[in-house]
């Protein structure tokens, strides 16, 4: 496979196999529940009841996190974000697959490169409401390192899975769990590990709910990506994990990571470049890293969060690069915008799309913005899908596109 000079990932680095993956979104726990919702066009967005003083907005809340136990040696990690991570690890045979990989490679040869934007920030928000009225001190038992700190989810997952390879957590806003595919591919190529756990978790919290509201980009109705009447995002929470390893006999049916492309907008902290220049650059770099042409791509899983500016910029970038022939859609109407988890959720939905031959639709989208030029899919349908570009863009102008597919 030939690759251009100056592209993201060097020769011999890819492909890598997504040999096992698991996820939890507001649509349900595990691949089957999410695939069913993808096929049926089900949305998991509901009016928020998340806070005492509810905001007028819809969220993608994951039910059942109150019943997740994090105890014993791991008790210090107990917080909503790690509970969500624990729930995702428990799905789809993921823990057993990692145990088998540990037997094959050794625990020190499996890296853990996860992402989050919220980490366990909700834990600190709650602690600030229970400060000592006299001293201002936080309540006893509050564990900053194992809950709030950005590395918390990495530490928790690495400990839970009994791994001892290199690790860190990437936090680049809403692009973060797409970027970790690149971190893992580079680490494996450099010989720092033979396999890696990538993914991460992001949970609902006051900072993101009130923060996005302050930016006037949060909808009061369920989000409507690419709709002419779109009015902003619906925030969701999710966790997803992928075991990445070099392709081998036992991974012959797995979807492959073919390319990763990263870029920065150099434009604004919280608005995308209006011409989608950074977004296009990320997609171009990902295609170049995969050694693929735009005609090779069957479907683009859009970032598509339903903001006025974001969708317009992405439509521009996608139609400039792919024209109007390549099918594309955003899954945010299903799951909400899962922020720091959006990268891995997009990658896993893309993988389900390839494995099960379904083009995702866009619940809540009714009338596509007439000024848009890309070929937006509103209703899901059966179709052969071999190669997908999955987009994730975030604050600070952080962009990442991932190419997934199978050898045909």
């Amino acid at each position, binding site marked *: 496979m030939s690759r251009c000079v100056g592209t*993201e*990932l*060097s020769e011999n680095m890819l492909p890598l196999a997504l040999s096992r993956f698991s996820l939890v979104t507001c649509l349900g726990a595990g691949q089957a529940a999410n695939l069913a919702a993808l096929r049926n066009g089900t949305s998991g967005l509901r009016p928020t009841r998340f806070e005492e*003083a509810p905001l007028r907005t819809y969220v993608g809340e994951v039910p059942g996190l109150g019943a997740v136990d994090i105890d014993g040696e791991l008790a210090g990690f107990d917080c909503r974000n790690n509970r969500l991570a624990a729930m995702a690890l428990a799905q789809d045979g993921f823990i057993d697959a990692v145990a088998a990989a540990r037997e094959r490679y050794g625990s020190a040869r499996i890296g853990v490169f996860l992402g989050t*934007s919220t980490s366990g920030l909700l834990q*600190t*928000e709650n602690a*600030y*409401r229970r*400060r000592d009225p006299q001293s*201002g001190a*936080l309540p006893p038992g*509050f*564990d*900053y*390192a194992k809950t709030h*700190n*950005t*590395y918390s989810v*990495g*530490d928790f997952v690495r400990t839970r899975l009994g791994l*001892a390879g*290199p*690790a*860190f*957590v*990437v*936090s*680049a*806003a809403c692009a973060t769990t797409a*970027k970790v595919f*690149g*971190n893992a591919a*580079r*680490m494996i190529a*450099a010989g*720092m590990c033979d396999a890696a756990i990538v993914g991460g978790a992001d949970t609902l919290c*006051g*900072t993101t709910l*009130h*923060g996005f*509201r*302050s*930016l006037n980009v949060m909808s009061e109705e369920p989000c409507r990506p690419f709709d002419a009447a779109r009015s902003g995002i619906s925030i969701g929470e999710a966790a997803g994990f992928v075991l990445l390893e070099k392709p081998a006999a036992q991974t012959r049916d797995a979807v492959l990571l073919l390319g990763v492309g*990263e*870029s*920065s*907008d*150099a*434009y*604004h*902290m*919280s608005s995308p470049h209006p011409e989608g*220049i*950074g977004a296009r650059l990320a997609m171009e770099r990902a295609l170049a890293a995969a050694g693929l042409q735009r005609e090779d791509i069957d479907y683009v899983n859009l970032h598509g969060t339903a903001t006025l500016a974001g969708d317009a910029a992405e439509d521009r970038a996608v139609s400039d690069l792919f024209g109007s022939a390549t099918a594309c859609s955003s899954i945010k109407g299903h799951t909400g915008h899962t922020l720091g988890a959006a990268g891995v959720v997009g990658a896993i939905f893309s993988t389900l799309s390839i494995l099960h031959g379904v083009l995702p639709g866009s619940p809540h989208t009714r009338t596509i913005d007439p000024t848009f030029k890309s070929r937006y899919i509103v209703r899901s349908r059966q179709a052969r899908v071999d190669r997908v570009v999955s987009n994730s863009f*975030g*604050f*600070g*102008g*952080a962009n990442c596109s991932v190419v997934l597919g199978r050898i045909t």
Partner: protein
Amino acid sequence: MRVFIEGIGLRGPGLNGWEAGRPVLAGTKTYEPASVTVPPSPLLPANERRRTVLTVKLALAVGAEAFEAAGREIAETATVFTSSGGDGETIHQILETLASADRELSPTRFHNSVHNAPAGYWSIAAGSRAPSSSLCCRDASFAAGLLEAAVQTTVEDRAVALIAYDVCYPEPLNSVRQIGAVFGAALILAPYPTDACFSRLDIELLPESGGARAASSGALDDLRRSSPAARSLPLLEAVARDEPQTLVLDYLPELELRLTLLPLLPDAARGGDSGRRPAVPA
């Protein structure tokens, strides 16, 4: 992995830049801690400087200093930012607002609270569309960032700027996360020796050996332990001393980074042909 150090930026108590701090780190001048002043970044326009928080100022200051020393084009170079946390003052103010009756947040404060705020401002200030990572590994954030930057440098065969920074937290966060000093350090790593390079650095990721870990001398070791970004000090001291050295940096409990440092002599002393290339290939 082998990389070459092309430029360094430094800002910490009593350490106002790499050239000014170098004699202290080399042990030829007494270390005198003093409060840290972070100059406004020459990279940002005046109206943007006003909105930036301490983490951003610190990261941009040490990053710009390292690039100046390296003589490398900022906009074309990939970056790895690493820190144990975001801007403490910003996070505290958001948490106080959310705990109050009126939970309305400032949009600027919200975007300044994200972990990759320095990377975002850097991209805008430098006009850079190059890839950028923003990492955290709590106390091991410097070692994790060095590993990622060296891996990128060798695998992608391109220069990478590593920018490590950490700032103090106000109470009550300080009681649960003590960071004792504002500290920033930046290293420009090149995959081959350029004219500006002054050290060769070999990095090995090894199982923890139980051997001697790197410590700094005297009061500098208090500084090293007080801030995750200051865990870079043993490496910076080794570079400042300008002699071959091997040291072990803390990473994760089961792992260590073994660093072998070799000063690069000026071309003339090595008989001219060093195989060096200019920083910006023609």
